[in-house]
């Protein structure tokens, strides 16, 4: 029987061990859940950025993805449901040197916290929002979400979903985000690069990552995790600068991935300094 040997000459550590709370690993996410991959990619981008780790803060809301704040060995904040963005906004305004990352799920960011998302994008708050989109409320048992496709069965839509799902990059763009990208957790190298880019630029950055929830979406819709990853591999098209209006998710037709928006616009802080702190007001 083959087994993993302990006799390597020297035993190196996992390269991300310094950024995770090792005592809390294995984490709570189910086998095959994509959140762990997205989380790991985000940590790699933070590590590769070369920025001072004391200047990072990670903020999460509620839900499976929201657990990320509890596993990262950086300043982090696990907030109330849907409110990750307002907390992040507060952190950023109180200490503009911080790199603030919001790591949360589609339900938390776009249903419970939808209003906060559009207004932070409108204000062009200088934060990076990473949204793990698994098309379902995973933690609460698989209820229909604002991102669930029509064809999907959930505990609250046993015959299919009559509601139309959000096109998240279009929503982000229309609200005023200055960086918008979409990847899947299988495209992890592009994702890591994209998060790095988002961290290094100013303004409101949004990255959507399609990710499997094998337990509460896959099982009910008869999709094994490996089949979902194969679908990410075969039914996606990378098209940078695609028109946000054509980014509806339809795996039959092919889902468009890439970086869609990367533009400059004054951030909230810049406008605040210019308008409220200018000499004539003092």
């Amino acid at each position, binding site marked *: 029987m083959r087994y*993993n040997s302990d006799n390597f000459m020297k035993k190196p550590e996992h390269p991300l061990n310094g950024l995770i709370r090792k005592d809390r690993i294995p984490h709570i*996410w189910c*086998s095959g859940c994509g959140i762990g991959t997205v989380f790991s990619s985000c940590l790699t981008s933070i590590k590769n950025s070369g920025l001072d780790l004391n200047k990072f803060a990670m903020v999460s809301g509620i839900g499976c993805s929201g657990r990320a704040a509890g596993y990262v060995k950086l300043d982090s904040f696990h907030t109330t449901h849907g409110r990750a963005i307002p907390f992040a906004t507060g952190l950023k305004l109180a200490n503009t040197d911080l790199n603030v990352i919001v790591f949360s799920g589609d339900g938390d960011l776009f249903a419970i916290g939808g209003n906060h998302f559009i207004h932070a994008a409108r204000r062009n708050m200088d934060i990076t929002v990473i949204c793990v989109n698994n098309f379902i409320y995973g933690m609460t048992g698989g209820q229909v979400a604002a991102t669930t496709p029509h064809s999907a069965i959930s505990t609250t839509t046993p015959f299919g979903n009559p509601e139309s799902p959000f096109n998240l990059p279009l929503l982000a763009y229309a609200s005023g985000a200055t960086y918008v990208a979409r990847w899947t957790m299988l495209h*992890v190298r592009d994702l890591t690069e994209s998060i790095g880019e988002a961290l290094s630029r100013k303004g409101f950055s949004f990255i959507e990552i399609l990710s499997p929830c094998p337990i509460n979406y896959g099982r009910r819709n008869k999709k094994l995790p490996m089949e979902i*990853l194969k679908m990410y591999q075969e039914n996606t098209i990378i098209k940078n600068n695609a028109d946000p209006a054509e980014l509806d998710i339809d795996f039959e037709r092919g889902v468009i991935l890439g970086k869609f928006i990367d533009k400059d616009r004054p951030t909230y802080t810049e406008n605040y300094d210019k308008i409220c702190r200018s000499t004539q007001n003092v």
Partner: protein
Amino acid sequence: MNFWRVPLDTNEIDVVHGEVHIIDDRCKGCGYCIEFCPRHILEFSLQFNAKGYHPPVVKNFKDCVNCHYCEVICPEFAIFSVEVDEPPVV
């Protein structure tokens, strides 16, 4: 390494070697590393880890090219590779 057509400069190219490390008790047996390793050098172990999953084992140490894909796709921080000069003999 087996090539479909031997590249002309095959003698001049240094193939990078990697050494894969697996932290058995972190693994949840999703199999992503096994499926997506471009060299197909991993397989499920017959053994169980502490949580009752089958972690991957390396079936062919000398073929790892240190691409790190297993490391980046793993949701569990359970596998990683490091560059080595010679293919490891384990």
